[in-house]
């Protein structure tokens, strides 16, 4: 039937023309959930110089509904996000959700279902207790072990043993990300007196993860306006173009799973690079916003994403390659280690990658960034979503 037709037409190029975030903080007691998301959405519209009536559809994501205690919050948020009379879709893929949500929105444009889409992700952790939300046991099923740190610490230890990395690498990442956050006005943690010694002296929470090597709990939202080629031509500021995007999942627990470098992460990155025509990620990608909720995940993901050979990721970190002024800057915004509204954290990675190639990242801009990777993961390191954005439109 129409296979020939669709292949002749091809995918519509997708452009990011508007980005908005809230100032992320521990508790936004001055706004409701609706007020929080509307703030980010309005900033994205302002950036794109569009109004609510220009939006054809809304795609919203967040982490579990138990985090705020609102079941299917898209129903309640329809009015606040100008979605009345429009399609509204709610994505939930665990910690990777912010990235997945952006990809679902991008597919609506790429598949020519809609011309201009608002996508948004949020978490208002102060409304409830995320630790409680993650700790509801069900008989005969494996729970996520009361919080994320306890689940991930053994895998960090496995990485250290496997790679021979010195135990100082984690603190280097935390020190770097917290300094980067000082250049990002939206970041939650602004630790003006941060020193490497302070990170190393902070209490041990889940050995080998120290207090200062963990993410905070934040209230915040992130929004993006995605549009087609015609929409991009009207955009007042340079767009970021989506060159590739993918999601991959694997089971939580099974004997063959490599928790240090999950196959789903490798496959997801490979798919994105294939779509984007990237053959040497280390050379061709200028900046990376990766999901690093515990500092050691930077060297681990450097390997998983193909920026370093197995066991070599920590050497890039130690050599300063991932610093803001390094050869492959990672988490220029301060990353999840400085800002973690859980459901929004993935979308912030995607949005910060887009800011970089638009040249709109302000003080944490990587000079001349042309291609940037946004990365998110979730669950028991089992759900992955990534996109690669560029300053130029995709050629294929």
């Amino acid at each position, binding site marked *: *039937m*129409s*296979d020939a*037709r*669709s*292949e002749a037409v091809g*995918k519509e190029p997708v452009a990011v023309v508007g980005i908005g975030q809230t100032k992320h903080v521990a508790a936004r007691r001055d706004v*409701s*959930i609706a007020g929080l998301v509307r703030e980010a959405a309005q900033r994205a519209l302002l950036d794109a110089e569009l109004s609510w009536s220009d939006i054809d559809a809304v795609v919203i994501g967040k*982490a*579990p*509904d*138990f*985090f*705020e205690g*609102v*079941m*299917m*919050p*898209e*129903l*309640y948020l*329809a*009015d606040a996000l100008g979605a*009345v*009379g*429009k*399609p*509204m*879709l*709610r*994505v*939930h*893929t665990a910690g990777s959700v912010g990235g*997945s949500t952006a*990809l*679902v929105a991008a*597919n*609506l444009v*790429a*598949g020519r279902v*809609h011309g201009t889409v608002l996508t948004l992700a949020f978490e208002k952790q102060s409304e409830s207790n995320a630790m409680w*939300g*993650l700790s509801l046991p*069900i008989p*005969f*099923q494996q729970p*996520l072990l009361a919080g994320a740190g306890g689940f991930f610490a053994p895998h960090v230890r496995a990485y250290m043993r496997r790679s021979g990395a010195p135990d100082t690498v984690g603190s280097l990442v935390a020190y770097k990300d917290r300094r980067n956050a000082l250049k990002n006005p939206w970041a939650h943690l602004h630790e003006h007196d941060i020193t490497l010694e302070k990170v190393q002296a902070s209490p041990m929470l889940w050995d080998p993860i120290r207090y200062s090597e963990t993410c905070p709990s934040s209230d915040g939202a992130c929004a993006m306006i995605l549009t087609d080629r015609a929409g991009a031509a009207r955009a007042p500021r340079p767009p970021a173009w989506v060159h590739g995007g993918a*999601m*991959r*999942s*694997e089971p*939580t627990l*099974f004997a063959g799973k490599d928790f240090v470098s999950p*196959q*789903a992460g490798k*496959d997801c990155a490979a798919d994105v690079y294939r779509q984007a025509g990237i053959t040497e990620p280390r050379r061709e990608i200028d900046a990376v916003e990766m999901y690093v909720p515990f500092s050691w995940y930077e060297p681990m993901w450097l390997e998983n994403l193909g920026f370093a050979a197995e066991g070599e990721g920590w050497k890039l970190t130690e050599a300063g390659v991932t610093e803001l002024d390094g050869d492959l800057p990672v988490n220029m915004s301060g990353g999840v280690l400085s800002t973690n509204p859980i459901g929004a954290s993935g979308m912030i990675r995607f949005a910060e990658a887009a800011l970089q190639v638009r040249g709109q990242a302000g003080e944490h801009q990587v000079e001349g960034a042309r291609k940037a990777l946004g990365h998110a993961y979730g*669950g028991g390191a*089992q*759900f992955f979503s990534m996109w690669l954005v560029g300053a130029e439109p995709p050629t294929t």
Partner: protein
Amino acid sequence: MRPVRDVAVVAFGQTDHLRSTDELSEVEMLMPVLHEVLAATGLRTSDIGFTCSGSSDYLAGRAFSFTMALDGVGAWPPISESHVEMDGAWALYEAWTKLQTGEADTALVYSYGKSSPGSVRDVLTRQLDPYYVAPLWPDSVALAALQAQALIDAGETDEPALAGVAHRSRADAAANSHAQLSGSVARGEYVVRPLRTGDCPPVGDGAAAVILAAGEHARGLCERPAWIRGIDHRIEAHGIGVRDLTDSPSTRLAAERAGVFERPVDTAELHAPFTSQEVVLRKALDLGDDVTVNPSGGALAANPMMAAGLIRIGEAAARIHRGACDRAVAHATSGPCLQQNLVAVLEGDAR
């Protein structure tokens, strides 16, 4: 929305819907259905281009409940997969979108819900405005009763007519071996006036799965594919005080966008958990008496939360597959008093 690429439902499976399934985990409930649609097409999970599911943590009573269900798909090696915290009809919409991009040619869609562990009337209050409405615990039957009373007050229906909807649905369900309630069901006592037990859906557990395929792939997998000629969904304001509960403008708009009104349909599968909601949907979709409505018995015969909408699409498709229907409209709803509605037009090839 009218598709760039032709995509069809090529297989549909559902569980028997039961009041309680204490002995089954969600994965155990889901797996036979997944195997059923895979067997029907001869596909293995490794052949599937994209997988998407719908479910709700609030029914499971724990966060990330869908991660365990994913294990039941046999998700190794890693698969391209996503999840919506919505009815499976919206998971199907996300999968359909993915097929529109050309990045996949086939998709597996599934959804499930177990309402039996809790009180679903109470649970659904948690989806209301958390600051002003949810603290009052207005339950789903009470809200539907407001809608039913508004319809009666507007002269659009009356209690005997609503009883007629229930009677027809449950009589039709006698031919549906998966239905939870069928045959003669008494009007019953008032639950919340004017709704009686007969006007309300059964509370139950169940799962469903669908396989989608694009273009020639569909023809290779199914003798008579159910082509999705159009699919669209729209949401309305949350506050029921600002809505006209006797109408469903979101359904009408979605139907327009999906192309429902361009040619007559012979079948409609409507996700109307309450008899009164069928009245609203018939009007919004402009369905005449010549249209066969809910031949499966609809949500009044089985309403597994999160799957009942996907089942409407599946039931419509299955009728096309077996030649009982040529052009059908399928509808799914979410939220109080039909707040959010999805409409799809399904067609079989001309015979």
